[in-house]
């Protein structure tokens, strides 16, 4: 049970989005993927999920190239939750989660009681069973996200890939989703925006910068002031988390973002003032 990328490039037209990424997901871990906007997190996730084929290098699942495994078989082993997937259809929660059974169904193996059971278990896992008959568009953002995760779980995957699962959620639901995902008995790779969330929940963190994998390691190794400054352009202090031993937390410093730009601007303003006086 291993999922890895070896020297993977992916390009859109002539523009390389990710370059020479080598990464191996360990069984059972919660791997967080961090990086500034446009650093290639989403692309990396979709290559890992087999949705995009590498332009160069290999994506490998258990020693076998993803492209040779076939869509259906892949969907039984890797569940993927996109950043924002919405629909205008009037479907119920159960129907949405049932879509996760698609890779197991065919004309010869129609829907069975086992499928019902799997769907119920998936709803239980995300604590949405009481809402199984609700219509999709009546759900809140957090509930929709839970349904998406349940749909991916109904695929009975070994790997669950989540692309910024906490986007647009309030803080309680953000923490709720991450707590839920950490408890699941699957290997999780999640692209995360909030570095403190990555620090709190991840076993390991991979840091992307400009399409390259900058570093990978434990939260304490990756989330250091130098990286936060160089990659994210913020000044911050990292402190040990007293309540959760072995974890760390980040305190950002106000006015510390993009210091170069800010000081340039102040100088410019000073120059203009001087000109006016003259």
């Amino acid at each position: 049970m291993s999922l890895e990328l070896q020297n993977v490039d992916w390009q859109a037209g002539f523009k390389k989005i990710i370059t020479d990424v080598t990464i191996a997901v360990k069984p059972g871990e919660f791997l967080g993927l961090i990086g500034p906007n446009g650093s290639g997190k989403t692309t990396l996730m979709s290559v890992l999920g087999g949705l995009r084929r590498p332009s160069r290098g290999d994506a490998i699942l258990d020693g076998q190239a993803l492209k040779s495994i076939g869509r259906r078989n892949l969907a039984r082993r890797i569940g993927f939750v996109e950043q924002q997937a919405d629909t205008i259809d009037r479907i119920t929660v159960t129907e949405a989660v049932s879509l996760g059974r698609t890779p197991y169904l065919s004309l010869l193996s129609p829907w069975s009681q086992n499928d019902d059971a799997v769907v119920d278990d998936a709803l239980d896992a995300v604590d949405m069973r009481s809402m199984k008959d609700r219509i999709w568009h009546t759900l809140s953002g957090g509930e929709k996200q839970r349904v998406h995760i349940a749909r991916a779980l109904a695929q009975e995957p070994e790997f669950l890939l989540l692309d910024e699962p906490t986007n647009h959620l309030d803080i309680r639901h953000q923490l709720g989703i991450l707590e839920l995902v950490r408890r699941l008995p699957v290997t999780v790779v999640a692209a995360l925006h909030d570095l403190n969330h990555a620090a709190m929940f991840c076993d390991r963190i991979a840091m992307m910068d400009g399409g390259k994998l900058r570093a990978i390691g434990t939260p304490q190794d990756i989330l250091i002031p130098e990286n936060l400054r160089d990659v994210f352009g913020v000044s911050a202090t990292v402190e040990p988390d007293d309540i959760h031993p072995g974890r760390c937390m980040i305190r950002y410093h106000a006015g510390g973002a993009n210091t170069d730009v800010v000081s340039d601007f102040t100088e410019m303003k000073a120059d203009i003032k001087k000109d006016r006086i003259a």
Partner: protein
Amino acid sequence: MIGLLSLAFTNRISATLVALMLLCVTLAFAASVGETAIPMQTVINTIANHVWNAGHEVDVIDAGIVWNYRLSRAVVAASCGASLAVAGAVLQGLLRNALADPYLLGISAGASTGAVSVAILGLGAGVLGLSVGAFIGSLVAFAFVALLSLQAGRGTGAIILAGVAGSQLFNAMTSFIVTKSASAEEARGIMFWLLGNLSGVRWPDVWLALPVAIVGLVICFGYSRALDAFTFGRDSAASLGVPVRRAYVVLIGCAALMTAVMVSIVGSIGFVGLVIPHAARFFVGTRHSALLPVSALIGALFLVCADVFSRMIVPGQVLPIGVITALIGAPAFALILCHGRVLR
């Protein structure tokens, strides 16, 4: 468990039987009403005579009207309605756009260009009929739209925009030919054809329309689970194990061919492909395994009835069926929309 399965199975079979019976009754009804009303008994006897040589005594003229004119016309109307509705449902599901309809792919525009090229410019030197011209035109337009959308890149937006561009281009060519070369009489004839016209339909048309409708429906039905998987978009379908590219090629190709055949037989009847799928969704929800057959059924019934109306509504004159579909369909759709909102 087996009991439950077989129950679901028998439910399905009985639903299919009820649907087929409903369709047969409607077809018989369509054959019996018209300028000269023909009793239902005569209709049934005539059909029995033709289908299994029952040897009933029927009036020869009545039998001729029922069999050669009305019944063939009704069966083509049913095939056409079913095809357009299924094509619409498939495109709406695949492109995730509630406004998608079969003519989105440039097919009706291309058909009109093909038809006027044959009828007015005399292309094909009398060898090609209007239908063949329309069919070729619709395929050319579809090829144009398909190539354009491939060039424009992935994504459903590209297909829809390419369809709009293609339709505009071919409609402009039709208008150009009509205004430049057609006489007033020809222009009126072409307009009539463009709005849909079943008057010239005979049995040979049935043997083209019916198989296309059935085969098309079966193929699309086979992809109903894949269509469901597109609920949350293309990437989500891919992550659920659907071969996205193959589904696109097969389903869009299927919808295009069904539409092209129907348009070349009866002209471009509007409204059915757009509205019937929405009506069907209102009744049976969005699961395509139910939506596609029900769309086909409602489309077939609707077009057969619309054809009867078009023959009856103005005595002594046949209205283009496209006018009727919109006149009846638009208010009916408005009702469904308002009612649907109340239910929400």
